[in-house]
C-alpha cells in the first residue's frame, strides 16, 4: 500500500492514500478505518476518513507516555511515535483484507411537494420527470465519506444525464430526508438545514438518529440504491419510525 504521512498541526496526522477520488482508494481508506476502529492506536483521540485520506487526531502526551513505556525509538517527538504506530498498523493490512461493502436501499418519494425541483432538473436535461427518476434509481452509488453535516453522505456514481446547477439563492430550510442534486452530485440532507440543492424527492428514513449507535444510517464505503415509493408509502414508513 502506497501512502504518505503529513502533520495537520501538532495534534493530528493525515495519512494520504492517493490524489484521485476512486473506488480503489476508497477501499484503502476503509481498510485503515476498520483497523483503527478495531484496534485504536495508543493515544489516538479519533480518526476521520475522507475521499483519499484518513486523519488521526492524537493526544501527544499520551502518545509520549506510551512510547516511553514501550521504549520505542527515541521517544521525544509524539509525531514520530504516532507515525511509527500508524506505519506498523498499515503493514498489518494485507491484500486479503477486503471488506464487503454494505448494501443499503433508500426509499424515495419523488416529485410533488417532497421534490419540488424535479421538473426543473427534467427540463434542464430535456427529460421527463419519470426519466429523471429512472436514471436516479438505476445507478449504484458509493458513499465516499460522511461530512458537511451529521450523517451527510458524499455519494459517487450519479449519471451526468441528470446533472443540474445549484439554486441561485439557497432555500433557508430544507427538510431532513430531502434528496437533491447539485452539479453532478446527488445527496441526502440528514438534518434540516439551509441549502442550494435542487430537491427531487424525500426519503422517510432517518439518516441521523441519536437513539442509534452509531448515530448515522450510512457509513463510508456503503453501496446504496434509491427506489421510488408513493406518497402513501412515504407517510406509512415515516409514521412507523416515530
Amino acid at each position, binding site marked *: 500500500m502506497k501512502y504518505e504521512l503529513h502533520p495537520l*498541526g*501538532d495534534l493530528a496526522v493525515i495519512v494520504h492514500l492517493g490524489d484521485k477520488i476512486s473506488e480503489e482508494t476508497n477501499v484503502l481508506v476503509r481498510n485503515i478505518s476498520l483497523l483503527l476502529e478495531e484496534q485504536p492506536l495508543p493515544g489516538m483521540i479519533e480518526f*476521520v476518513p475522507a475521499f483519499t485520506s484518513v*486523519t488521526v*487526531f492524537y493526544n501527544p502526551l499520551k502518545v509520549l507516555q506510551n512510547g516511553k513505556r514501550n521504549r520505542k525509538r527515541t521517544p521525544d517527538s509524539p509525531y514520530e511515535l504516532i507515525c511509527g504506530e500508524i506505519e506498523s498498523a498499515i503493514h498489518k493490512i494485507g491484500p486479503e483484507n477486503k471488506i464487503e461493502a454494505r448494501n443499503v436501499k433508500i426509499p424515495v418519494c419523488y416529485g410533488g411537494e417532497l421534490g419540488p425541483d424535479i421538473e426543473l432538473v427534467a427540463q434542464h436535461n430535456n427529460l421527463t420527470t419519470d426519466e429523471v427518476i429512472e436514471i436516479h434509481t438505476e445507478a449504484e452509488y458509493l458513499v465516499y465519506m*460522511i461530512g458537511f453535516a*451529521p450523517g451527510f453522505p458524499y455519494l459517487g456514481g450519479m449519471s451526468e444525464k441528470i446533472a443540474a446547477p445549484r439554486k441561485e439563492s439557497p432555500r433557508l430550510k430544507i427538510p431532513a430526508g430531502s434528496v437533491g442534486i447539485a452539479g453532478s452530485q446527488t445527496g441526502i440532507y440528514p438534518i434540516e438545514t439551509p441549502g442550494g440543492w435542487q430537491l427531487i424527492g424525500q426519503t422517510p428514513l432517518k439518516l441521523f438518529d441519536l437513539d442509534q449507535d*452509531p448515530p448515522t444510517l450510512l457509513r463510508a464505503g456503503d453501496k446504496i440504491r434509491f427506489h421510488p415509493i408513493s406518497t402513501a408509502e412515504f407517510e406509512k414508513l415515516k409514521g412507523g419510525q416515530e
Partner: protein
Amino acid sequence: MKIVKPGLQTTIQDAGRYGYQRFGVIVSGVMDQLVYRIGNLLVGNSNGEACLEMTMKGPEIEFEKDVLVTITGGDFSPKINDGPVKMWRPIYVRAGSVLKFGACTAGCRSYLSVAGGIVVPEIMESRSTYLRAEIGGFEGRALDSGDSLTIGERSERADHIFQQLSDSELPYVESDWFSAAEWGTEANQNGIIRVIQGREWNRFTKESQEKFTNTEFELTPQSDRMGFRFKGERLELSEQVEMISEAVSFGTIQVPSEGNLITLLADRQTTGGYPKIAQIASVDFSKVAQLKPGAKVRFKLVTHKEAEALYLEQERHLQQLEQGISLKLREGGE
C-alpha cells in the same frame, strides 16, 4: 442557578465531542481549552466538567444555592451583588446572590466554572452545545432569560475550600490565592500567532508566503465559533489546484479563492476543501480564541518540532499548576 439575562452568546460547553467526526458530527466544545481547564482546576472539578462560555457581553445569573465558582479567560468586569470580584480564583457565593458582568476590557471569551459542573444530559459523550444541529448543551441552544441550570455535586477537594470560604456571614468570599498561568501576560497579548506550514504552503506564490508572514491581518466581524475571517493582503496560489476534501482541525488556516484567510475553530465542519496555507501551533490556540473583531495579528512561522516542544512545555506548566492548585485546595480545609 438561574439565567436572568443571557448576554450576547452564552452556551454550555465542555472539552468537546470526540469520536463522532467520522459521522459528520463536529467537535464543538470551548473555544479556549487552556482557560477552561484552569477554570475546572480552580473549583476542584475533574477535567471535562461543563462550564458556561460567555462571549463579549456576559449574562446575569442568580444563584439559588450556595456555590463555589471561578471566572477565567476574558475580563468582562464581573460583579457579585454589584461589588467587583476578582478572576482566576475560587469564590464562595451564597444563595440569592447575583453575578453580573460589565465592560469587556480584555479578551473576548470568559468562562464561568462551578464546582460540580453544569449538568445537562450527555449527548454522544459530551455536554457541549452544537448550535447548528440543535444538539447538546441546554436544549441545543444558547442560554436565554429564565433558563434554570442544574449544578452537579462538588468534589471532596472543592468541599474543603468551600467550607473554609463559607465560614462567614458575607454573601460572597474570594480566596486570597489565584492562578492565571501565562494568560493575560504581555507575551500573550502581543498579537503574534505562531504557525507551522500547511499542506498547501508550497502551492502559494513566494510573494503570498512573504505577505502571510510579514504583514498584519485584521480579525473581521464575520467571525464566530465556527471560524475567524481575517482581512489583509490577498494571498494567491501559483496555479489553481484541484482540492479534495479532507479532515481539518482547530487552527487550520484556509485560503478560499477570494484570497482572505479563514481560521477554523471549535464549531468547524469536520472536513474542508480549501488550500491550507498554515496551521496554528496549539500553544497559541488560547491566544486566538481570545481575539476580538478588529484585533490585528501577525503570523510567525515555527517548525513542527518547535510547535511540539511548545505544546509539551505548556502541558508541563499546566501539570505544575494542577499540583499547585490541589495543594491550595487541600490547605483550604485545614
